[in-house]
């Protein structure tokens, strides 16, 4: 009895206990098939305002998919500076671009054929990011509800948005 007690209290007993703890009941890790979500801001933390020339260069590239010359950018910059209401100035410049040949805008029929694809493409083109589900839903509803909402008007609103002024 004495030797048995000493065995249980000795190093072998300690090892046995440690082994039991190590290999005993383990909490099972459940995976519910939810992807890891990045909690960063969906607008990409755009906090720097574009200069007039940057704005014009990117706008022209987005609408015509060609670049403007430095001289043209300089002149557009002057035009924006010469008008006190900058939003008004941008509206007029966008309106001028929209009136020129060569603007590349999806047709309304192709937009209606694949509304989700159009929304995603537009967000990518102008805001360089994916739309959230809420944003997709809002635009989907707007396009469905208002026959006046065309691809051109949607492009116009993106080009006029505050987010488009930042990078």
């Amino acid at each position, binding site marked *: 009895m004495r030797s048995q007690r000493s065995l249980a209290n000795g190093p072998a007993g300690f090892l046995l206990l440690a082994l039991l703890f190590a290999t005993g009941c383990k909490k099972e890790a459940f995976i519910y098939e939810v992807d890891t979500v990045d909690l960063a801001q969906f607008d990409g933390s755009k906090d720097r305002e574009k200069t007039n020339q940057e704005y014009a260069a990117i706008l022209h590239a987005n609408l015509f998919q060609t670049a403007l010359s430095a001289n043209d950018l300089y002149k557009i910059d002057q035009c924006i500076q010469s008008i*006190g209401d900058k939003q008004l100035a941008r509206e007029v410049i966008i309106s001028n671009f929209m009136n020129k040949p060569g603007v590349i805008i999806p047709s309304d029929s192709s937009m209606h054929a694949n509304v989700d694809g159009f929304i995603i493409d537009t967000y990518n083109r102008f805001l360089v990011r994916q739309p959230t589900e809420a944003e997709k839903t809002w635009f989907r509803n707007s396009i469905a509800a208002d026959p006046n909402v065309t691809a051109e008007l949607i492009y116009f609103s993106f080009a006029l*948005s*505050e987010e488009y002024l930042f990078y």
Partner: protein
Amino acid sequence: MDRRKFIKRTGAAAAGLFAAPYILPSGRLFAASGAQLAQHVVFVLFAGGVRQQESVLQRYLGDAQADDVEGNILYNMLDGAPPSEKIVYGTGLGGINPIQSILGQTLQQQGTLFREMRAVSAGHFGGLNSLLQGNTAATQGLQQKPLNPTIFEYLRRHGGIPASKTWFIGNTIGNSVPLLNYSLHPNYGAQYGANFFAPNVTFGPAGDQYLSDAKVYHPQDQLMPIYEMKAFLDNSFENLGTAPTSIGNTPEEKQDIKAFMAEMFTKTQNGTIAHPPVNDSGDLSTVGYACEVMKWFKPALTVVNMSGVDGCHSSFTGYLAAMHRADHAVGHLWDHIQNQIPEMAGNTVIIAIPECGRNAQPNAIRDQNDWYSFDHSDSNSLRVFGMMAGANVPSNLSIGGEGNQVGIVTDVVPTIAEILGVKSEVMGAGLLEPGTQSLFDRF
């Protein structure tokens, strides 16, 4: 509650509803309390640096150069005989043909002349800021928007004036001029700012290329959806940077301004802008478009900037010509208001003040007539005149004189505020230069 009490309280509540303050679009609770002296003010920044000697003192070449020829070259603004010889400020080869006066009666006769006022800055941007802020702008940066509220913001905030009724017409987009339409002050700022055009750019070759061919969208069917979608996008965007500039034009005001721009491009192309009879300088061209702005919008306040006289850094001859043209511009403005804009005729006050003077002593540069040029940095640069005329302004009155300065250039802010009925609010804001007061209080 008995019947009598019920009727009494209901009546009191109804009376309270009727008497409740009317909240203006500007956010103010009550309409401006002060009585207006006029419905419109045109403020000419007679800028670029004008020496007293060649303007109100009428010394022509007698003070600045070795030639003993004196006389008045501001035909529309001041009384006085013109120089009898060495005429260089007019038109034609050598400028020998003076531009005839437009006004039958000088502004000096029609209004009040402050013969010598004190400028608070010897620099252009500081001077312009002092005229628009009513403050010395001692800490004002050169490429920085005004630190204290401008007269535009005072009027819009305290007078409930819409954006399209306050206009700043600049002669350039250089020298930080476009920055002057509103301040960075936290209690005022962009939302109370003025509309601005630099017409020589807006309606010049660059504007013609990029602004003149705007597609016209239907206000309800097309623009409204655009604005709605923009509003949604803006709400989704967490703006971490500087808030984009918006001076608060309503959609209707924007439409009106776009229509005005379209009209200006057409008129520019057709050569029918209301330019002065002689239109051979940037200042004169600017004033032509200012006349068009006034005719279209009938603003409560129109500020026009000129600066051609600053050529005096290197050409005294050019300086004299530019000053003569600035006078021509002022005469044309006033004549246009009286004869072409019935809504403003007899109901407008015009004010003209330089932002600073120029030095007493010349620099080393001589022009084509071998005349010395002048910079602006000494005490003579702080001597300017001031002039106003129009509704409720005493006529044929002359105040102060050489060695007897009356008034500070900062006075113009409370003066305009008094004319348009918000003087007490502007004075009460506590942001004016100490000692500043309405010019009407200087009489």
